[in-house]
């Protein structure tokens, strides 16, 4: 679960001297929202996003139509890109949660992935959502159960043992501290090839734990 497993390799890139209008067109045509700006040898110089290209109408209020068109045609990618210390990047061997933290902290939707300053890929919020979905087995059918357990060592083992004894397999699992209830943990598991009722019966037999949500997902 590292950045390199979930990033998009060979992203579409753009050079700093390209007119901004061209960058806007490229994003639109290729249906992407971010373009790393690179120089020779794919060295990262900045990042251009759809947001960055949005020119607020108030800025243009005092200009006449000729001035607008002249200013727009002179605008280059390097004038509008995120650069310098504002530019956040991540290495391909970092963990996904590290990338997520960086994106949350800066409230940004994408990180260029670089190795020694060379762009090797790009990771966006969509990639992280893909990871989340995979983590919880979003693409397979099965029974999804949320169990609330006390915040104690050995509780998770109880669940896995009970399921393993039945010969079923846990396809995906995740655990978080219960929202708004820091004394308990919510464990989410996805079990394949197990009848729902039997599974619930087995899990209800575990002492101290409580099933708070069961659903069959196809």
């Amino acid at each position, binding site marked *: 679960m590292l950045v390199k497993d979930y990033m998009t*390799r060979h992203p579409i890139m753009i*050079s700093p001297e390209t007119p901004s209008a061209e960058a806007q067109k490229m994003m639109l045509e290729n*249906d992407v929202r971010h373009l790393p700006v690179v120089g*020779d040898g794919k*060295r990262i110089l900045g990042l251009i996003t759809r947001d960055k290209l949005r020119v607020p109408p108030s800025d243009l209020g005092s200009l006449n139509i000729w001035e607008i068109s002249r200013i727009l045609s002179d605008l280059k990618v390097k004038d509008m890109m995120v650069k310098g210390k504002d530019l956040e990047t991540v290495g391909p061997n970092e963990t996904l949660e590290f990338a997520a933290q960086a994106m949350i902290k800066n409230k940004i939707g994408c990180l260029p992935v670089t190795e020694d300053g060379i762009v090797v890929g790009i990771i966006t919020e969509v990639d992280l959502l893909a990871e989340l979905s995979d983590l919880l087995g979003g693409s397979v059918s099965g029974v999804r159960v949320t169990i609330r357990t006390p915040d104690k060592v050995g509780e998770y083992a109880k669940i896995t043992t009970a399921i393993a004894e039945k010969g079923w397999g846990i396809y995906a699992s995740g655990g978080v501290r219960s929202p708004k209830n820091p004394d308990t943990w919510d464990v989410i598991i996805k079990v394949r090839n197990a009848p729902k009722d039997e599974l619930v019966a087995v899990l209800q037999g575990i002492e101290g734990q409580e099933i708070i949500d069961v659903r069959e997902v196809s």
Partner: protein
Amino acid sequence: MTELKKAPPVLKLEDVAVAYKVRGGEIEAVQDVSFEINRGETHGIVGESGCGKSTVAWAVVNFLGANGYVKRGSIKFQGKELVGVTGEELRRLRGDQIAMVYQDPMQALNPSMRLGDQMSEVLTVHRGMAQKEAEQRCIEMLERVYMPDAANVMKRFPHQISGGQQQRVVIATALLNNPALLLMDEPTTALDVTVEAAVLDLIADLRREFDTAIMYITHNLGVVARVSTRVGVMYAGEMVERATVEEIYKNPRHPYTQGLIRCVPKLGADKAKSVLYPIRGRVPPPNNRPAGCVFGPRCDYVQERCREERPQLREFPNASLVRCHFAEEIVASDWTPSEDIMPPSITGKDVAAETILKVDDLKKYYKVTGSSLKDVIGLGEKRYVKAVENASFELPRGTTLGVVGESGCGKSTLIKTLIGLEDTTSGNAKFLGFDITNEIANRDLSLIQELQMVFQNPDSTMNPSYTVGQQIARPMERFKTVSKEKIREEVIKLLTAMRLGENYYNRLPRQLSGGEKQRVGIARALASHPDLVLCDEPVSALDVSVQAAILNLLLEVQQEFNTTLVFIAHDLSVVRFFSDQVAVMYLGQIMEIGPADAIYAPPYHPYSEALLSAVPIPDPTAKQKHIRLEGNVPSAINPPSGCRFHTRCPRRELLPDGGKICSQESPPWREADDGHRIFCHLPLETLRTFDPVITQLTEGS
């Protein structure tokens, strides 16, 4: 894993036409080609030579030469238009984002620079990396492409490593900058099957790991089946069919694709049970393409509409695209060959035929002179390249012996010795009872007449200033097989038998296509009515459709004149199809010999097994065992002791002590039934337990 919304394609060609400016106008070499390649996808492009495959690749990198240009259409790479890009931007694209691997690695490498220097140049120039760091990266990349002893290879010059390794260096160099698109133009065509298999595995690995989009050009349908996810078939500058690889082989829709697939012998097919159907005619030159459908003149289903209206690429329900007016109506299985390409029927052989060639313990050593002073004055230790060692076999009249093996295994030396281009070091070879161990200069004329040869490259064996007629007449005059007045008549008879016709009599070699030249070569070999014809890779340089025609022709000749053939080829499917007996050679030693069907089924010699598992099969559903030989073919000057194959043998471990005996003693001949002999320490019972290499070959079609 969650499938993300489809990303835009890495490369997208739309209605691309490429033209070359020539004297008196323009030639459109490529017309209306459209396709796209996504990340991590290999898009194969197949077709005969002269169909514009390479031109498409060159157009992508704007490498068309001074007179070529993209006339229409757009080529988009990562959303950027490439048509018209020049200068600095093009240089940057070629270096950073697009890489190329061509057929001949020796032409891509600078012979006067150490490999390390030329590899690290990519990084120091394009990325401005420091020399030390760049070298470290190069070593890592060489290890990635499974190069043994990578650090040392960096210090060598290109000629000091083998062809397969050279190609690996080229691939490693291409990948150094982590390109988004890799253009590969026949990257394995010049390599042996075993090396080819390793390189193809490598390409598949790298595609997965680096998510590189690959455009893979080849004429070999087996290779395409192994590496591609989608395939485009090109004919005469147009893309005539495009579909997923499974669809192309299972359900080819365009008559040209169907024809191509019928041309290739399936591994396991032999001449008695199956036939090859060549496509009649040849690819039209770009300045003389027919109106309407370009394939019309060679198509069996051609109708009035095809001659008048150019078909468009139409989409079919299974997402394949076909450029044919009648693709829905054409059913490949109902196809019957037309009169002019009807292959010869094979009648059963007379089993008790006399032995025409008997070779016993034949050896051919080449003396190697060292460069030290001792060697020069003749005191140095004498060293020999043992090119052929202890070859023994018998060949009944009217049969074919196929000889297979990697390059450098002594196939060609064996037949050169037989024909007398080289003398024999020791051993016996008897042809119709006459001794043929001496050189050709000392042979009787009548003996020379009975032994003729067909060469691999007809270009270099034909006198360019003699007409076809003169060249074929020459052996007749020399051997006086035909009276002078009748020579012309006889030559024309031969030409007709080769399906060339009288009007070829006065042509010069340069006026012939490759296939036609090879026909003339065969006609010349047959002119003296020889009893034994030695063929050295006669079809390797030819396109599949021509190859099928030549093979059929040879079969026909053999039927008619009861000629005996020795047939060298590196293509195991062709050998299997064509031969009655097969000999597998390794480092000058025949490792296994026997009836063709026995070689291709257990018991195998471990080397034959490895060779078979490396053959690319033109059927993506076929399951093949995965055996890859380690290392390179050892030097023939100093071959390994004991069994010559022991250094690379994957089956050695089956013997006690990890196969200690293999490195110490020369193995015995194990006699399986029916003249099938295997040169191996492993007992036959063990060899029999090997599973067949290829399973799930779809029958027929």
